[in-house]
């Protein structure tokens, strides 16, 4: 891997991003009301980091964050889902390279394309990759893992769609823009 892809800032963003991903996975789950289905705020954060730091950072935050989370909280890494997390980070970063969030640009067009991208990405990761790997690695029954993937994928699409979009909008608004501010009496 050459140093162009992994600048110092990207390295640090991967480390800190993975740590935040882990903390959000542990403490930032919100029950949806549907049994056993949680909104994982960590995936909204992952999407934002992919937008800000690009596909390599997204991939590695997903892979490292998910592996450490599994290892320290559940004792064993769940490889099929770890790979799916990495793919989410990678694909959002790749597909959204035209969205210039850092420059404070996140208008209607960007919101729509971001959401199309995230729906496709999450579908690939959770409807396809995670269950297929489950079947291949663990030979689990197909309909079980596809339903699990469907539920998790749908929850993640909603999370990234609502929360991820909100976070990106809020981030864009904090970027400095030219304009005059006046005091109102």
């Amino acid at each position, binding site marked *: *891997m050459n*140093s162009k892809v*992994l600048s*110092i*800032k990207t*390295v*640090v*963003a*991967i*480390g*800190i*991003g*993975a*740590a*935040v991903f*882990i*903390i*959000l996975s*542990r*403490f*930032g789950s*919100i*029950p*949806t*009301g549907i049994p056993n289905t949680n*909104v994982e*705020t960590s995936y*909204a*954060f992952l999407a*934002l980091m992919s937008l*800000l730091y690009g596909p390599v950072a997204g991939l*590695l935050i997903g892979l*490292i*964050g998910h592996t*450490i989370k599994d*290892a*320290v*909280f*559940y*004792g*064993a*890494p769940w*490889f099929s889902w770890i790979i799916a997390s990495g793919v989410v980070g990678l694909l959002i970063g790749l597909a959204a390279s035209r969205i210039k969030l850092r420059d404070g640009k996140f208008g209607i067009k960007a919101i729509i394309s971001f959401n199309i991208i995230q729906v496709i990405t999450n579908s690939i990761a959770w409807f396809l990759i995670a269950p297929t790997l489950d079947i291949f*690695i*663990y*030979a*689990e*029954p*197909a*309909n*079980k893992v596809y339903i699990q993937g469907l539920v998790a994928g749908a929850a993640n699409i*909603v*999370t990234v769609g*609502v*929360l991820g979009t*909100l*976070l990106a909008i*809020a*981030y864009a608004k*904090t970027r400095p823009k030219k304009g005059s501010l006046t005091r109102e009496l």
Partner: protein
Amino acid sequence: MNHKILSYIHQESPIHRLTGAAKLIGFILWSLIAMITYDTRILVVMFILGIMIFLSSKVEFRYISFVFYIFLLFLFINNIAIFLFEPMQGVEMYHTKHEILHIIGHYTLTAEQLFYQFNLTLKYLTIIPLALLFMVTTHPSEFAASLNKIGVSYRIAYAVALALRYIPDIQRDYQNISLAQQARGIDLSKKQKLTKKLRYASSILMPLIFLSLNRIETISAAIELRGFGSQKRRSWYHERPFTKEDYLAIMLIILLFVFSMIITFLDGNRFYNPFR
């Protein structure tokens, strides 16, 4: 507020003495075997070996008991779910049907299903002792050095070290932010519309994200000032040189790997079938 997590415990044992890199290679190969094979004979041998390795590490069970029980609970639920979803998975796999007990509707317990689920459970049970052991016998600092040693770019290895370093700090940030917002009235456990909950969640996430982005800037400046990334390679203070034991351990695990693969695929199938 003290949540139990797995972490390194300093002790003296043959497993502790192995370098992180040797353990990492061992763990990866071990997991690969357990994931690929469905051969009951191999899995049983590995399961027994795994327990023996765990015992030789002298790690007390109580250090890992909480995680282990969570894992057992997961295994139990997973087994029930598999049976509910696909009671005939075993029959499909082994191409025979030995009925034991008819329960209700199309739910019939078969010897094939029992055997299949036994194998699946065994797969998980062979991985878990070594995974737990790897976590509690490898010093986090040495872990990063090990990643680099087995060929991972030092930049990525260092990113892993950074993640481990800052988890406690970010947990503290998260708790402070969450408490202050709770005092202002956020309640995420309450029953309310999901979209509202997500909007509330954003008022905890936003400050956390901005603090973290600032942290990324400061840390980048700090490590750049200390020459990170200036060379093609870097040395590691906590790296440990390979000893005879390390080479021996790696050779044994490679042997086990090759041997398992031969047995597994000898009959052209991953699945050991006692029913034929």
